């Protein structure tokens, strides 16, 4: 099966409520994910330092594939916005204003598969997905995501 390595858009960073497993590892092993948005996201797949979240609608699509996807569990994520986010987007007089109520809900892709074997895996902190998963993802917005073949 063909696989792709994705360099996802980064629109934020770990929040203070994130619980990392010990000892620290690269990529970090996360027990509870708190994702803090620094800027309004463009894509429906977001990442930071090897940890990924997707929009709720993309998550539902991936979960509804006929053959269940492997190498991932879909878990809840706490998403908040930072002061920087508010600084960019809270002034309704400016073109950078965004209505925060339109921010999508997200789910955490807790990846535990092996890259190039399972539908989801991590390689050098990049998200590696099978072609069928990638095809499903392509039905959502991924304009800032860089994609390369994974051999």
């Amino acid at each position, binding site marked *: 099966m063909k696989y792709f390595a994705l*360099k996802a*858009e*980064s*629109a934020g*960073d770990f929040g*203070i409520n994130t619980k990392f497993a010990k000892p620290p590892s*690269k990529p970090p092993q996360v027990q509870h994910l708190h994702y803090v948005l*620094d*800027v*309004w996201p*463009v894509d429906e797949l977001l*990442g*930071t*330092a*090897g940890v990924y979240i997707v929009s709720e609608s993309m998550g539902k699509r991936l979960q509804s594939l006929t053959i269940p996807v492997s190498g991932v569990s879909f878990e809840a994520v706490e998403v908040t916005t930072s002061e*920087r986010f508010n*600084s*960019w987007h809270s*002034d*309704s*007089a*400016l*073109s*950078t*204003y965004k209505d925060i109520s339109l921010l999508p809900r997200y789910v955490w892709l807790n990846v535990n598969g092996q890259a190039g074997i399972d539908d989801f895996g991590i390689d*050098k*902190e*990049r998200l590696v997905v099978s072609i069928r998963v990638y095809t499903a993802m392509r039905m959502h917005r991924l304009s*800032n995501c860089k994609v390369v073949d994974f051999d």
Partner: protein
Amino acid sequence: MSDAKANEKGERLDSNKESDTLKTADAQSARTASASDLTTVEKSRTNASDGSLARYSSSDLAAQEHSIELVFGDRVASRKDKISESELLNQQAQSPDNVNTQGLESVAKDDGVPQEKRALASMIQDMRAQSKALGASTTALDDYAREALKQELNAVSSRHTVDHDDLEQCGEHHFEPRISILESAAPPANKTMSPDNVRLAQKSDSGVTDKGEAVKSVTGYGDSSNNQMSFVSRTPEPEDWGGVGALPEDRQSEVLTTAVRGRVEHWTVAESEERLGALVGATEGLGTVLQDLAHLTDFAHACMFGDKETASDLGAKAGAAVGRMLVGEVKLFNLSERYLNDLGAQGDWLKPAKDLYNLGSHIDKTWGDLPAREQERLKYQFVVEMGAGALLPEQAQAVLKSGKLTEILPNMAKIAHKTGSELAHAPADAKKTVAAIKGFFEDVHAPEAVMPDGRTVRLTREIRGLYLMSQAEELGGAAKPIEMLTGKPQRGVEHVERVFESPEIIARFARRFGIDIPPKTVYFFEGEKEAHTAEIAARRLGVSVEQLQNQSEASLMAHGLQKVNDHRDVYFNKYPGLIAVADRIVVERGVPEWVLRDHPGLFSAAELNELSNLRGLAKTEESLNHYRNIHNIWNQFRCDYPDPTRQQVLNQLKAIDKEFGKHFLPPTGGH
């Protein structure tokens, strides 16, 4: 022609009557007057002008400044406070959140408005009156009133609109067309402007031909058949220059010099328009062309004669004229130089061409005389206000790097015009460009005040606004200011002193934008990237704020705590000229703060909050995209270098600065 004029003409044609008159003793005495008689009469004149701007001098103009005043609503139009009727009416009738004395008075008397708001309205009303009486602009005060009393003024405005509509429906609309007073020699009885509102304060000197010109050129009131007034009967629009801008350059030069010559030689409006119409091939917009060049000519003459006071009075008008011309793509300064040098203006055209050329030289000199820091401040403020760093980096760079104002202004026009059309929520049109250049020009030519220690300070709009706002906040409606800023050097000293004497006032202004002067202290816990206030840090340590603040750095370090200056405050303390637009700037760190959390010890919090690590970005879509890209680059860096060295981080920063540095405020990375 009015009956009075017809009679006057008829009398002149009656040769017998004239001959009889000339035979009287008085007439003969006048005809044979000696030199000493003439000297005596000259000395008795209160207005020293001979009426010719061609022989302009400051004393002449000063003597005319109060020769005629027109009181219209809460405005008094005179040479000192020029405003066209259409501009005035536009302000009064079209602005939905208009601030005027009546609006403030209505708020002050409205029982439904909270007492403190009523008191504030009353106070601002008085301040406006004082400000106008002293010849100072009320713009900053009006802005403050709009901000502080927005709801109340809008409520009043909407009530007035309803009343106005009711009157129209009842057929009792007394508000005459705004061109009405431009059309006749005297205000007819049925005009809205009552005789009480027209104060003709003519002084003796009936022989001064342009005595009323200052007023006439402002209001258009007077005999329209034989003077230079009433150039325009509506608000001048930038588009009015479009016809001229579309002409070949040599023809544009002819238009400019013709209009200047008409102003200097007192051509009638009809004559000027006829000549210009022949050159342009159309008559649309010629009123604006004539008016703008009249302002520029007067401004140029004031500059030439070293009359800084008059030049600063005319600065805003001249700036608006320059703005309209630049938006109309008329390269005023290039044209005048080229016309003088290459095309060879000769004879009667030499002087007007020289006037325009000298104007360019003068404003470059005025600009050059400003301290370098002040030049930078004004340029940056403009670039930030326009969001130009992100949208048009080349033009922004050209503005920031240009040495001459005549080179800066055309780039400003490009920036303002472009940003105006692309920023969805910004006032988007050429008028904003004109307003921006007008304000900039006004600031460049703002009068100076000498401080007690000998320093000179220019009374820019910001300084005046700062003072007025501080007064309004300080007084809270309970008291009234003793005096307002006048905008005049001789009166500015004590006011500017009061502004600068108290850092409190400047600090209060900055706090409106969440900025502290000097910078406030924040705390970083080791291994975390978030900055905390003293209250939060103290709570986490289980001590009081006082105890925290009294701890030494070594003691704090022992608790894994670093005390540093707030990064945003550091930035705006360094660039105080940007405080007024602080809400439109995001201050980012070059080396991102997650380095503190993910790689403790690689950088200190103090290093990350140093000025050299701070990058300002204007809040525009373009800047936001740059920020996204930078965010992604750093995220990729985290993936590529799980355990980076300090040098690797600095190399990445250098690469980012090189790619995006030109979009920062100020630019970095060799830009």
